[in-house]
């Protein structure tokens, strides 16, 4: 068992390099992927709730296609064919970040879609009655309310993006996993580099997971309490003072 940890003291010397690789490459790719993913996600999420059948179909096809294929295949596909699409080829880092953004954009669009649909339908009708156009309704009324519902799942997606930056290693981008593997191969010790890499990923992702759970509790409470109070008030008014709560 402790064979796995042999050489751990030596890999600890490499920690600054690992962390630097992580921040400079993995986190940068994660941030670019997050931005691309948010843009795609919001556009497709809003499109999925629109009334035009074409927009809904495009969004549906995109989401289904990307949620049911492995990300590694997407990565290889775009990496191998990028010289034909963009003359001169694209460097591996850009391809990786774009693929991550495209892939997670599908998941984010589902989150955005469910967030928009969770905002009460009455809001949309009330806005229409006040003379808002479709776009104005979306921008001023629905999206601000949907944001509160969307943020906790998006935080979980951010954790997923950071974890998925590990696939950049496969196309030889110098991210954390790549460094770990290079160290393992030239030092001859089997385990420690990966254990250190796991600790770095954990140290970054675990706080985000905790944040996501905290946000979920915080946002859910405000909503539920108001709804429960409103229902109780309604019941009181109906049955002449007696409130039959749910058992």
């Amino acid at each position, binding site marked *: 068992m402790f*064979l*796995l940890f042999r050489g751990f003291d030596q890999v600890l010397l490499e920690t600054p390099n690992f962390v630097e690789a992580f921040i400079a490459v993995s986190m940068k790719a994660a941030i670019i992927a997050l931005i691309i993913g948010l843009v795609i996600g919001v556009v497709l999420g809003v499109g999925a709730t629109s009334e035009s059948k074409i927009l809904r179909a495009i969004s549906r096809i995109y989401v*289904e*296609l990307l*949620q*049911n*294929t*492995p*990300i*590694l*295949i997407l990565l*290889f*596909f775009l990496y*191998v*064919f990028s010289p*034909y699409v963009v003359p001169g080829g694209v460097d591996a880092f850009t391809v990786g970040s774009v693929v991550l953004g495209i892939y997670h954009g599908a998941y984010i669009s589902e989150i955005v879609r469910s967030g928009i649909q969770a905002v009460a339908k009455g809001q949309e009708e009330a806005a229409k009655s006040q003379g808002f156009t479709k776009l104005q309704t979306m921008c001023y009324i629905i999206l601000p309310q949907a944001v509160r519902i969307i943020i906790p799942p998006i935080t979980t997606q951010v*954790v997923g993006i950071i*974890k*998925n*930056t*590990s*696939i950049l*290693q*496969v196309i030889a981008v110098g991210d954390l*996993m790549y460094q*770990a*593997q290079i160290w*393992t*191969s030239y030092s001859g010790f*089997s*385990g420690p580099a*990966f*254990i250190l*890499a*796991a600790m770095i*990923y*954990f140290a970054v*992702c*675990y706080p985000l*997971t905790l944040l996501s759970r905290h946000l979920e509790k915080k946002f859910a409470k405000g909503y539920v309490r108001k709804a429960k109070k409103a229902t109780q008030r309604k019941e009181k008014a109906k049955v002449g003072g007696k409130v*039959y709560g*749910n*058992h």
Partner: protein
Amino acid sequence: MEIISSVFTPGNVRYFLTGLEATLQFAMLSILFSFVLGTVLALVINYAPKLLGYPAMLFVELYRNTPLLLWVLFGRFGVAKAFRLDSYMAVLVMFVFFFGAIVCETMRSGLNAINKGQFEAAASQGFSFAGMLRYILVPQAVKLVMPQLLSTLITIIKDTSFLSVISIAELMYQGRAVMAQYVSVSEKIVCYGIIIAIYFTINFSLSLLVRHLSNKQKSRKPVGTSLKLG
């Protein structure tokens, strides 16, 4: 059309099918063992004394916050070398640990969703705690979270593509091997299209099943609701 006939040779098709068989075999073994591990972990975290529960929770959190590729590489270059295991077994163990943590979260949500009244009703009938778990709670929890478990199966099938990185001959590896024979772009695109189509067909059918099951569940009465009085 010569592209199609040049790619769909019997040899190539056999390559793809071999890869598909390896992928599905690995995925089935993974989901089976990770379901067992996940259920055990969920029961330990929820109902065992804190002394056992905290290490289990640490295990689950560790595997939830680290990437799968890390563990795949660790299994191949770390565990397999250190213990001189076959890399297939080592990576299978890593997959089982990783997805065991995910299944544990799912099962915990299922167990927590069961009405407290079930516990009391079972105790009043004289069930021991183990009996309660085995005959009443776990079956209900599994039925509740079945859609999520199938989603996890979809994720497992997608993540078997990571095995191609460590040269295990599953679908993507075989697909890329087939692709290496061809030089022209259009044939390579057809090869990729075939791989993507196979993954998409399997996963999409499973996701339709997931949607069907979760719709059926939504229209059913919630589990273990007590009677409404008044």
